[in-house]
């Protein structure tokens, strides 16, 4: 008991040192504002102290935590605007929210002008005009809540909020970071409008361009058609709906057309952005890789939502582009998963990849190879076809006899499958993998006598459900007199337009780009409005919404159809 009292006394004495902060923080000598933001970000996002050691904390009253397991942004999110998960509400920790009082009445603020004060619809009834839930934080009270879990109103926070054991200098850096987190709204938003752009780059087919732009614009028009009512509500709606109504903005869609060689695209993007900054990019269509746009968005921290590309940047840590899928990379990955987990291929079974050097096969090769490596399997052998090489029966027999493959990955187009039927006469016919995407989903090029050995990657909804799933999209397009020029593109943009209001609404009036992305992260998994994929799933930091790819086999006969051999997601 004596020991317990001693320890309590020690804790009290420790807390008494807090006045060292005063109301205003001072950073440690020699640490600039920029450096403090960088160090604070590392604490907030990675749980790492400026010394390189992990932060230490206690959660749920008695569980010691290594800060790397459980970072501030896990709950409060990168924006600092917080999250709601089931029964747990995580309050905002961004500077804008922390350093002003939290009203018990949500976003309602006492009217400022005389005219507003006279307006009954803008005022709370007297009995609701009660004290704040908490006063504004100061640097000192912010440090105290991080150390003790007691807020400036004297309330104890839920024990799920860790108590951080931070030294004075580390605390000053974290407080400085929080004070500056999500303070100024992002560019591209004003009092009336949120401005978006879509990128069209390179030699894109005119009908594809039209398919994307008309569908996106139809969604924007539908949203803006509510403006007259919404703006009236925003100006004179009742006090208890202030937060919802005043968040309303018209949407503006700019088209950023990029011309010339790919190397010039970054400068063109910079130029567009300098002329008229946008809040985010939506959709987008480029000939080839999306990388130049992806890198531009990472650099400027601009969200890019659902670009139409088979060649996204596949990166673990990049943040700002939300893709439909990993494109052809994902198909290569699915082939590897299927062979490893489903077929249980022997560890030493030889795998041979035949390909031509092009963007499609490069993505498939990389997807397969990286997964294969993760399974600790040996590198496949590669056979590259030159521009003048033609595939014949002899060529395939030579591959089969010289390499003795257990698996042949043919990342080739339909024109390169000639003579493949010669393989069917071999004593041991390898498993042959093809890409539906590279065959343009046209399967007659796969010879009938090798279909029983052939497996295809199939990264979209199966044909038996395709028409049914597309029906709402075609009806929606018809109702708006939009010609169907590329239904797959239109179905994807239909889905984007269907999701967009949810993510915009999630932000309320907190127009921060990270918060916008978090709106998508928090979305319910979708299997209804998306026609192209069986389902899309979301989660914090998940940047490829489609996680699956069927492996299918073809039926015989003149009109081969795919039959799934795997689940949508292969574990």
């Amino acid at each position, binding site marked *: 008991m004596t020991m*317990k009292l001693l*320890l*309590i006394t*020690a*804790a009290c*004495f*420790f807390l008494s*040192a*807090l*006045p*060292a*902060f*005063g109301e205003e923080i*001072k950073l440690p000598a020699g640490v600039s504002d920029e450096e403090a933001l960088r160090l604070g970000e590392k604490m907030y996002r990675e749980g790492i102290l400026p010394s390189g050691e992990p932060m*230490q904390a*206690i*959660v*749920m*009253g*008695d*569980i*010691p*935590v*290594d800060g*790397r*397991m*459980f970072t501030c942004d*896990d*709950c409060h*999110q990168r924006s600092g605007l917080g999250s*709601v*998960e*089931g*029964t*747990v509400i*995580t309050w905002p920790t961004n500077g804008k929210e922390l350093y002003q009082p939290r009203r018990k009445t949500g976003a309602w603020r006492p009217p400022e002008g005389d005219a507003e004060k006279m307006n009954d619809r803008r005022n709370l009834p007297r009995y609701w005009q009660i004290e704040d839930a908490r006063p504004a934080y100061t640097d000192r009270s912010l440090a105290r809540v991080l*150390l003790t879990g007691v807020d400036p109103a004297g309330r104890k926070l839920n*024990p*799920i909020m860790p*108590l951080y*054991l931070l*030294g*004075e200098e580390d605390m000053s850096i974290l407080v400085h970071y929080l004070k500056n987190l999500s303070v100024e709204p992002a560019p591209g938003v004003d009092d009336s409008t949120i401005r978006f752009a879509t990128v069209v780059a390179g030699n894109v087919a005119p009908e594809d361009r039209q398919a994307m732009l008309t569908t996106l614009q139809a969604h924007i028009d539908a949203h803006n058609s509510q403006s007259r009512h919404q703006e009236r509500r925003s100006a004179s709606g009742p006090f208890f709906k202030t937060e919802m109504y005043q968040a309303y903005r018209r949407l503006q869609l700019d088209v950023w057309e990029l011309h010339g060689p790919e190397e010039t695209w970054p400068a063109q993007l910079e130029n567009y952005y300098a002329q008229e900054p946008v809040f985010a990019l939506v959709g987008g269509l480029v000939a080839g890789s999306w990388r130049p746009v992806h890198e531009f968005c990472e650099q400027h921290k601009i969200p890019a939502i659902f670009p139409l590309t088979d060649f996204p940047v596949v990166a673990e840590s990049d943040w700002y582009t939300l893709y439909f899928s990993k494109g052809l990379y994902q198909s290569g990955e699915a082939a590897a998963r299927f062979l*490893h*987990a489903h077929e249980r291929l022997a560890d030493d079974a030889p795998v041979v990849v035949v390909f031509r050097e092009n963007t499609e096969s490069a993505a498939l090769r990389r997807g397969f190879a990286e997964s294969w490596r*993760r399974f600790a399997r040996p590198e496949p052998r590669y056979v590259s076809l030159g521009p003048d090489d033609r595939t014949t029966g002899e060529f395939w027999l030579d591959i089969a006899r010289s390499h003795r493959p257990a698996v042949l990955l043919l990342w080739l187009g339909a024109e390169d499958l000639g003579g493949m039927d010669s393989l069917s006469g071999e004593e041991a016919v390898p498993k042959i993998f093809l890409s539906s995407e590279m065959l343009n989903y046209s399967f007659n090029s796969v010879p009938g006598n090798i279909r029983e050995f052939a497996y295809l990657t199939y990264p979209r909804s199966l044909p038996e459900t395709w028409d049914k799933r597309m029906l709402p999209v075609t009806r929606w397009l018809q109702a708006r007199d939009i010609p169907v020029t590329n239904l797959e593109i239109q179905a994807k943009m239909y889905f984007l337009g269907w999701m967009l209001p949810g993510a915009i609404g999630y932000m309320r009036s907190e127009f921060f780009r990270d918060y916008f992305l978090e709106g998508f992260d*928090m979305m*319910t*998994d979708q299997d209804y409005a998306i026609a192209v994929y069986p*389902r899309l*799933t979301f*989660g*914090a*930091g*998940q940047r490829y919404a489609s*996680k699956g790819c069927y492996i299918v086999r073809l039926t015989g006969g003149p009109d081969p159809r795919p039959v799934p051999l795997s*689940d*949508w*997601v292969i*574990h």
Partner: protein
Amino acid sequence: MRTIRYSFFLPFFLPALFFLLAGQVEAAPKYKRSVEKYTVPDVTLVNQDGERVPLRSLLEGDKPVILDFIYGTCTTICPVLSIGFSHFQKQLGADAGNVRLVSISIDPDNDTPQVMKEYLARYNAREGWDFLSGKREDVIQVMKAFDAYVVNKMNHFPLTILHAPGSKHWIRITELLGSSDLMREYELLLKK
């Protein structure tokens, strides 16, 4: 700015808070607990090593089981549940292998063996803690069997389920637990 440096007191702070807060825990147990009967579905899931795991034999084996439902990119509830598991294993030390900890993914599309392995590594999981995923339909069946199903994973709730070998009963706790709470429940389970 005053120059008092309180880092001197840091070593005292943590134990002091332990005592302060432990006192509160003793005074008022604060979680919802019930005794339930569940039938484990006969499904095969996949663990963090890519191994197929028949769920029924895993959960109804010869070891006590503590089960939760989590996912790899969860923002709040799962990290706290997993920190609880991690600390529980640490407290048990050499005895950690005597109890089976099982986390079942409620986001099976994203939680591949690779994701699950990385997740467990982040929480310093020891032998005896498995993270399971699998076919979406199978996972939903398991969630429903344990009354843990939510349509939207963002609406999930903290749930810890304990089971003693051979028992027909399962202890269901629908709150986040502190370390002493989980240990007490485990000890109660062993006494039965």
